[in-house]
């Protein structure tokens, strides 16, 4: 197995699937300013996806570029964590999904910035600034919604109950992540969990939200076992390059 390729795909696919979903908010946000904000975050995610997938293509060395990887892989070839493919739902669902991811992305990018691979470190350094801003945004909204009205509190508590079981996938460890730590080019995500937990508990207390009781976590994205949503998402995202395989755009 090309562990470096696999590892980079995971990074790229998380960003790609989140970016794809955030793009759906453009024009449909709760207020104009927030429309612009969600699109900005989506743009950062797409930018990160392009960087990671390009690097993944290089690591694979089969001539696949970012678009080949994004548009011509089937569902089982995608390596994003299950959390990222949770549907947008309402604004609170999107904010919770983004917050749970951002709280992982911040320690992830900090660790990746220490990579012994200069290309990985460079992308991570740029991404770290973006994810720090994303966390600031999603955290502030989680607090506003959690400690807002009774309705918003209930809604966003339900979002959290719904999303949290899918977050465990972010911390999945296997021979790919072991290779990353052994060879020094990336962290094992399971080592990021303590940082993530700290951000989570601090934010939930400020937002007056309850940590849902632990339930079995949903795992599978890193191995290409996905939820129902991903196939729909890919069908939409990939429609043009798949319909016109010879075309350039």
């Amino acid at each position, binding site marked *: 197995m090309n562990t470096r390729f696999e590892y980079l795909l995971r990074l790229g696919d998380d960003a790609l699937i989140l970016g794809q979903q955030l793009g759906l908010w453009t024009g449909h946000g709760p*207020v104009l*300013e*927030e429309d*612009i*904000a969600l699109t*900005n975050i989506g743009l950062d995610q797409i930018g990160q996806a392009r960087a990671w997938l390009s690097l993944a293509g290089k690591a694979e060395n089969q001539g696949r570029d970012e678009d080949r990887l994004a548009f011509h892989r089937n569902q089982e070839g995608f390596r994003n964590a299950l959390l990222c493919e949770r549907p947008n739902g309402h604004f609170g669902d999107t904010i919770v999904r983004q917050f749970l991811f951002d709280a992982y992305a911040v320690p992830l990018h900090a660790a990746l910035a220490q990579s012994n691979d200069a290309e990985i470190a460079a992308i991570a350094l740029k991404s770290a600034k973006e994810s720090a801003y994303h966390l600031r945004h999603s955290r*502030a909204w989680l607090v*506003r919604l959690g400690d807002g009205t009774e309705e918003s509190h209930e809604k966003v508590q339900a979002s959290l109950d719904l999303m949290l079981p899918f977050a465990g996938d972010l911390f999945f460890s296997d021979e790919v992540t072991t290779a990353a730590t052994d060879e020094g080019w990336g962290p094992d995500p399971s080592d990021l969990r303590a940082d993530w937990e700290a951000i989570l508990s601090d934010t939930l207390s400020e937002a007056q939200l309850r940590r849902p009781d632990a339930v079995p976590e949903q795992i599978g994205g890193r191995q290409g076992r996905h939820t129902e949503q991903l196939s729909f998402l890919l069908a939409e995202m990939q429609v043009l390059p798949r319909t016109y395989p010879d075309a350039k755009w």
Partner: protein
Amino acid sequence: MEKQHWPLWEIFIRSRQGLSHRHVGSLHAADAEMAIENARDVYTRRQEGVSIWAIPATEITASSPDEKDVLFDPADDKVYRHPTFYDLPDEVKNM
């Protein structure tokens, strides 16, 4: 019915180190933190700024146009405040 307008904020951006903040426009935000974030996304998408001020529009006191003459005309005849008022011999350079 919902008739709760988020307050209006006036936004000032410092475009580069060393320049002063300049008014760029306004936006709506529920709180100060959101005003700064929204200003960042609305008014600095193309690297237009290095610093943001967000000020609740209701906190700004403006001079009235009716007072324009009273406020500003008295400065008209104080030409001696400008360096060009003073004729100096050419031999004096750079003063």
